[in-house]
């Protein structure tokens, strides 16, 4: 294995005269790690520590008729058995902290379960073995319900309702649609006039984050009515605020300690073990450890969710991609967790690192009767990148073009307009493609070796084209079997006025097809086209906006988020 630095590239944009930055300094914590002395959460083994184990659903979907804990409570070593009734605020959604989405998931379920492994009770005992023994003695009366596992089947009329908060089996976007839209240009027309239309369907599998250290937390009473929680979390204050809400406890009564974690990869943001351990601690007055075993980590702990992507490209014979359409299904499993957020991230990422003048996408967050999905390395991006880059190879094969040259030809460059209407800058795809090909001895044409991210971008490529929009996929339509193609409207980049863009329509040849802004339909798209902006941070709000309702700590009380 070799590593080389290509300092010759972009040298004029870089100050290489730094003292410490760029040095291979040995890590501050390496001695502790290699000698086994670094304290992880599980090294805080308090005297009198109790252990928690969960009673979990053996069914994919079932109503809970009753839970009888009396036998388990009499088992030796058992300190307490918890059910949903013990949870002060037993409904949450992780992104509630960002005011995004509705509370849809109990910490301990009381009415029904929607995935195999869903917790309905927790036993606290003086050893894990005794806790496990008692778990087996908790009697739950189940009434099995029909279940659905495929994202497209879940959206069909008559499919079982997985998540009562979202009875259409899909997340509600902007209180309007069952998906997030991306609309840029006129994809249908461009497909119709392209030399070739090339379709594909690609699927990302569910994958386990597989950290060596499984999810876990140890909570203990501190002095003055506070509780300390040692945790494996990837997001200390995120987990603290989530616990504060579920436990109805002011955040300053919680003292979270973590920071040294045995791998996360996205699987340690769901903040389940912390409130569970804390609840056990509050109700027993003793230190409580809740740590997932490997089976729980793999089958109950949220994996990277499956994704299914349909791509349609309009391609010219010279390799230019003139249109790209996506339909994406994220399999969220039974509850939202973070999947709804990943879809917006994916929307902003499309169509990948290429400049394509007509792009559209519809992405749905679908509920099915499987383990809820959550973040994992590349969240929102990895699945669609597999789809895009597999499809690029298909396109190259179909039109008989070198796959590297196809990428370079279509690569985005500084100054190009992206479909989310921000100008690209700081691009380096072309250079990466050239260097990787060179290293592998993959010969590409001189013209392609001569191209650069810094040249020949912008100009016409900076324009926001007249864009066809629609109101298809409003909440509930799909489940009602109404999926027909609805009315189309075209929004033009407004000339002049207060929303002027500096861009001109990229495809002005058939301008007659585009409605004039003055003839705008009675329903207006939520936002008029904005002047092109570069990928910089938007200005900070001038004045604080109306705080969101609710009494728990939130990181964002910006009312705008709730509209997403």
């Amino acid at each position, binding site marked *: *294995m070799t*590593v080389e630095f*290509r*300092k010759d590239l972009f040298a004029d*944009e870089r100050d290489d005269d*730094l003292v*410490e*930055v*760029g*040095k291979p300094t040995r890590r*501050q*914590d390496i001695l502790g790690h290699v000698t086994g002395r670094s304290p992880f959460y599980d090294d805080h083994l308090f005297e009198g520590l109790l252990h928690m184990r969960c009673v979990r659903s053996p069914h*994919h979907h079932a109503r809970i008729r009753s839970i009888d804990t009396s036998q388990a409570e009499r088992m030796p070593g058992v300190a307490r058995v918890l059910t949903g009734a013990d949870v002060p605020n037993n409904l949450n959604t992780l992104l509630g902290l960002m005011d995004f989405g509705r509370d849809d998931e109990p910490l301990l379920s009381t009415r029904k379960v929607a995935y195999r492994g869903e917790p309905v009770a927790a036993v606290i005992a003086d050893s894990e073995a005794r806790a496990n023994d008692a778990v087996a003695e908790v009697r739950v009366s189940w009434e099995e319900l029909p279940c659905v*596992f495929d994202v497209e089947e879940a959206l069909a009329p008559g499919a079982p309702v997985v998540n009562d908060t979202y009875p259409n089996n899909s997340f509600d976007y*902007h209180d309007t649609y069952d998906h*997030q*839209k991306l609309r840029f240009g006129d994809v249908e027309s461009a497909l119709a006039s392209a030399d070739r239309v090339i379709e594909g369907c690609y699927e990302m*599998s569910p*994958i386990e984050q597989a950290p060596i250290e499984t999810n876990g937390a140890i909570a203990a009473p501190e002095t003055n009515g506070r509780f300390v929680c040692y945790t494996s979390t*990837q*997001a*200390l*204050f995120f987990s*603290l605020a989530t616990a504060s809400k579920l436990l109805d406890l002011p955040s300053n009564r919680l003292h*979270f*300690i973590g*920071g040294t974690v045995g791998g996360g990869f996205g699987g340690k943001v769901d903040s389940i073990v912390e409130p569970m351990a804390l609840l056990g601690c509050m109700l027993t007055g003793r230190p409580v450890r809740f740590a997932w075993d*490997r089976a729980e980590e793999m089958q109950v702990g949220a994996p990277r969710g*499956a994704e299914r992507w349909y791509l349609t490209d309009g391609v010219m014979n010279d390799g230019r991609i003139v249109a790209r359409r996506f339909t994406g299904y994220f399999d969220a499993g039974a509850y939202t967790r973070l999947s709804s957020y990943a879809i917006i*991230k994916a929307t*902003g990422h499309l169509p990948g690192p290429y400049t394509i003048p007509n792009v559209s996408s519809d992405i749905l967050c679908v509920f099915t009767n*499987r*383990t809820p999905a959550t973040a994992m390395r590349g*969240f929102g991006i*990895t699945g669609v*990148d*597999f789809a895009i*880059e597999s499809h690029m*190879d298909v396109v190259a*094969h179909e039109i008989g073009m070198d796959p590297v040259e196809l990428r370079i030809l279509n690569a*985005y460059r500084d100054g190009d307009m992206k*479909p*989310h209407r*921000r100008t690209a800058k700081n*691009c*380096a*795809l072309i250079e*990466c*493609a050239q*260097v*990787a090909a060179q290293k592998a001895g*993959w010969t590409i044409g001189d013209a392609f070796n001569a191209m650069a991210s810094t040249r020949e971008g912008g100009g016409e490529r900076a324009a926001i084209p007249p864009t066809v929009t629609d109101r298809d996929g409003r909440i509930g339509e799909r489940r009602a079997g109404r999926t027909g193609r609805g009315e189309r409207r075209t929004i033009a980049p407004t000339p002049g006025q207060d929303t002027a863009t500096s861009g001109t329509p990229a495809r002005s040849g058939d301008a007659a097809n585009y409605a004039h802004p003055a003839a705008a339909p009675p329903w207006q*798209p939520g936002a008029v*086209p904005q002047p092109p902006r570069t*990928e*910089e941070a*938007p200005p900070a*709000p001038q004045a604080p906006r109306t705080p969101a309702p609710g009494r728990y700590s939130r990181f964002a009380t910006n009312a705008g*988020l709730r*509209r997403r």
Partner: protein
Amino acid sequence: MTVHRGRGFAAINYPIGMNLGGDPSQALVHSGPDGKFAIALSSIDLGQGMKSVTRQIAAETLGVPVEDVYVDTADSDTGPHCMGSFASRGTHRVGNAVIVAAKEARAIMLEAAAEELEVNADDLETDGRGNIHVRGAPGRSITTGDACQAAQFRHGKTVAGRGIFLIPLSEVDPETGEMTPVSCYAHAALVADVTVDDETGEVTVEQVNSAYEVGRAINPRLVEQQLVGGAWMGLSHALFETTEPRYPDRSHGPVDFSQYTMPGPGDIARHDIAILERPAPDGPFGGKGPGEMCANPIMPAIANAVFNAVGVRVTALPITPEKVLRGLKANGGARPGPRR
């Protein structure tokens, strides 16, 4: 049986930080009595090197040796808020917060040095080895330790700073998807060389050649660790891993590492890496985050290499021998593509 060689390519970009922003991180910096600095964070070190990267950024900004900086994280009583370690946001967000905090502390340290040396603070510079001296006159100098001590014990000043970095939240248009997702992107391109056994369907990755653009490699060894580890993980996702091998059927879920297949030592491919650095205008010293993106290009590159080797397009990960064999059967045998 025949073993076919194939070569596949993929290129990607990757958004750095939490999509839409609204994800602040904070840092506190202060000097002890003798110029040893502590950085208080609540960010998480998952093994990726959060503590090391922020330590190096702090040392560079303060102008003190890295040995004089220690990063303490994550205690909610002492560490200021951080959104968390995810979304490739650590280096970018926390690094920037550390720079803001360290600049404030550095200014106080230089003021104290200026008073001790009876010069203007604007004329002072640090050498990064623990000395502050008058620009152009290295002889007129004071150590950073003495300057910090003077600040506290003679001038009654704290050598401290606080920093926050926030990209304000962007809204999303429901009709068009207009938004400001992130402020910068990392890039990668990768060539995978594989062999495919047309009798067993087994895919072996023989060689990987890659180019990763990371803005600035704050610590090249930590970047290397991410790139090598990430490519391994991507290879594993491409060929081995899933919690639901019969997806969408829920049966056959693995529950331990003997059932959840991953590459063993013999499955690790040789990987030759080129690192490119095009500094992000708003990154700490231009740094982006290599952590997530490095796993992405190898998955499609391997799928494309398998197609090149035997003409089987596997569209659903992982690319198991079973899927390859089914594809070969459907095609009536291997159809090798052009040699590249």
